[in-house]
């Protein structure tokens, strides 16, 4: 069934790039996704993901119209993601009751800015589709360096601040009384989410980021008793879903991003049903 896929891996650079991208992105998203699921900030991650389109659209427009070839859409994505994360973070720390409104506004405005800039950029507009739904088969060697660099930054931050991030996610009030700078670590966590979202946009696109960020971590949650184990298992699942999704989608020429999400979604549903998490029996 997968012979064509394995032949393609052996023959084409783009297939090997795609697989390596899945591994690199899986490391970041398994780790950060675990924080997103346990701290319950999925909606914030969704807002950041959609705001990314604005940054990518602006960078794409200026790099095309003004021939600024060094202005990779990734840079626009990183700036937009961090700006969205810090805005949402400050709002949620300062004025809690308005948090969901602000997230919704950032979500929609980011999309609108992205669509406008991409529509005004000369060309065929195929970039809009790849930003929205992912373009893992178009990852270049140059992109891989950027993905790897972001991965290293995320890993180093999590290793250095693991215990502090854990206490801030588990018991914010205790952390505050112990003199831990809760605001700093919360904003740091949102910045990690922002960087991870940028990585995931490559694989599954803006629209489906939340699924690949949270489903592996949520599945791992059923089998994990510590945060560290949850992260390790989520990384493994994320890599497995991406690899398997790529393999399944190759021969029938299905969109890779959507196939990856379907694979993750089916596994999540099966685990939920077998663990009795969806319905409780009345007997």
């Amino acid at each position, binding site marked *: 069934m997968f012979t064509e896929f394995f032949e393609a891996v052996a023959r084409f650079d783009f297939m090997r790039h795609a697989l390596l991208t899945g591994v690199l992105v899986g490391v970041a998203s398994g780790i950060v996704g675990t924080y997103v699921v346990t701290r*319950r900030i999925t909606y914030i991650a969704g807002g950041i993901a959609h705001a990314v389109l604005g940054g990518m659209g602006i960078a794409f427009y200026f790099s095309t119209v003004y021939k600024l070839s060094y202005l990779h859409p990734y840079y626009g994505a990183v700036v937009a993601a961090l700006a969205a994360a810090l805005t949402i973070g400050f709002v949620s720390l300062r004025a809690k009751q308005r948090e969901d409104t602000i997230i919704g506004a950032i979500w929609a405005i980011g999309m609108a800015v992205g669509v406008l800039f991409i529509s005004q950029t000369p060309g065929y507009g195929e970039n809009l589709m790849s930003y929205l739904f992912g373009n893992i088969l178009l990852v270049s060697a140059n992109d891989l360096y950027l993905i790897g660099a972001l991965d290293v930054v995320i890993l180093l931050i999590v290793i250095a*601040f693991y215990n502090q991030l*854990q206490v801030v996610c588990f018991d914010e009030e205790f952390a505050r009384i112990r*003199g*831990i700078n809760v605001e700093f670590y919360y904003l740091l966590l949102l910045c990690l989410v922002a960087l991870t979202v940028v990585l995931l946009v490559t694989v599954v696109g803006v629209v489906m980021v939340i699924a690949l960020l949270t489903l592996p971590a949520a599945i791992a*949650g059923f089998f994990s*008793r*510590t*945060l560290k184990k*949850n992260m390790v298992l989520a990384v493994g699942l994320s890599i497995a879903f991406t690899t398997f999704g790529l393999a399944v989608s190759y021969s029938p020429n299905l969109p890779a991003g959507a196939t990856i999400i379907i694979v993750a979604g089916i596994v999540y549903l099966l685990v939920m049903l077998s663990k009795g998490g969806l319905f409780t029996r009345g007997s």
Partner: protein
Amino acid sequence: MTDQPAVIFENLSFAYGGRTVIEGGNLSIDVGEFACIVGPNGGGKTTLAKLMLGLLKPTTGSVRVFGKPPAQVRSRIGYMPQHIQLDPRFPVSVLDVVLMGRLGNGKLFGPYTADDRRAAELALREVELLDKRDRPFSELSGGEQRRLIIARAVACEPELLLLDEPTTNLDPRVERELYKVLDDLNRRMTVVVISHDMAFVSQFVQKVICVKRQIHVHPTSAIEGKMFAEIFGEDIRMIRHDRHSEH
């Protein structure tokens, strides 16, 4: 003065939103003492705890903890709040939770040290949870969770342990065990417990601080059921215990 009291309130008043919560209160808790703060709901017990932690500032008068403004010595206080809102499904082990007590105090990053682990394990032994160190937090019973949170406060190596309603919703047998744990801890540190229930407290503590807007301090030996009835009405459960009766 070398022999500072652990906590001292001088002529303290606290008003919140125009409502006077504490009025003209004086109290002092000595180092090594086991004190209990009692009073009706809404009488200002938790306010008193938050004043001791420096989370609230007095409207008039002063609070000193170990001779200093409380916010400066907060790291020397192990505090357990009344309402602990924790996600029961959060993936942490019992040991992970206790180790959280070792954070803060200017430690900004990096892993736990061998000293941290020793202090955490000692705290777990003191609340008799050492054999459950690798169990997930979600598998603990209500009483075990309460003991775990006390262990985490103890792992901070505090000089003052301040517990707000540690026995709420615990059955009397578990409650009694908990007070024995606190009695043991009192050999090493000053203990202040907030309670609305005098049933078990009176046989362990040396000082009872009654709060109902005003603050009255009594040595335990002077406690009479009648006195409580006068101060609080009939809503206080009171069982007369002799301090030296057999357990």
